[in-house]
């Protein structure tokens, strides 16, 4: 990918990925899902998840899996509101950029 992405977009992507799982999802799976969209180092996501958790956009709970306690992440109401804000912003932003690109191509 030639475009650089800031922290806000990473927050938005992580929130979107976690929000797809109604029952919540776990760190390894979040990383793999995010990596389908953008090439992100495996060590990048922990600080993002931790910060979103502290900002009360994500909540965590431990659940038995395979004889051990696995930590699950779930989007909170505040997190959903934040995600919707990001969605709106992204739509606005990407539309303008697309318009510029496509308009430039036809002119």
């Amino acid at each position, binding site marked *: *990918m*030639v*475009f*650089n*992405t*800031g*922290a806000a977009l*990473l927050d938005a992507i992580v929130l979107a990925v976690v929000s797809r799982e109604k029952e919540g999802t*776990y*760190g*390894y*799976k979040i*990383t793999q899902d995010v990596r389908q969209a*953008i*090439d*992100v*180092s*495996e*060590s*990048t996501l*922990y*600080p*993002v*998840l*931790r*910060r979103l958790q502290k900002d009360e956009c994500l909540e965590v709970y431990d659940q038995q899996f*395979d004889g*051990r306690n*696995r*930590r699950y992440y779930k989007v909170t109401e505040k997190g959903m509101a934040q995600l919707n804000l990001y969605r709106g912003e992204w739509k606005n932003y990407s539309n303008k950029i697309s318009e510029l690109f496509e308009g430039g191509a036809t002119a």
Partner: protein
Amino acid sequence: MNRIDYMTELAALLQDVPVEERREAMKYYNDYFDDAGEENEQRVIEELGGPEKVAATIKAGLNGGGDAEGEFSETGYTDTRFEQKDVPAGREGYTYGGQEPPRTNRTLKIILIIAIIIVGAPVVIPVSIGITLAVVACVFALFLIFIALVIASIAVVIAGISLFCIGIGNLVPALAVGLALVGTGLLLAVIGTIATVGTVRLCIIVFPGIIRGIVWILRRPFQGRAVA
């Protein structure tokens, strides 16, 4: 390096973050290895980068502003602040040595202070004793001067009274001499009394001043230490 080594080193590198944060991070990466599965262990270790990088990323996240510095590029997410730390040559031997420099500094300081005391003692102790004794002597002398003034005044009074008595004794054999002696005696007694009263008053004024001065001088080093 296997998973156990990796997690041990990460825990060691996170010694200086709050317990809660360390526990959270260790839980996350422990889960991460579990979920990746044993077969992916080496791949995960390679992709995570060194424990130093992971620890640095965690700490940067804790400092709040840690997200603004990172950015995505064609090579993935990179944080410009950690790039130099990624391939540290002598980092393998990293220990808990971080706290040692201040400790040696303090030891050095104590040794220097002891050395100064040992070297300086033969000079400093006699000199300070000498100065102290000189000050005490001066103060004592000052007291004595004022006391001497009082004694001198009293002596004048006594001399006046004595002359007065001698003058009375001489009134019968030689009237003129006797009168002169009585007059001089009275005069001296009056002057002596005035001088005595004056010097005693002077002492009453001066002595508390001197005592206050001594107390102030004695207190000074302690006050100075308290301020410093």
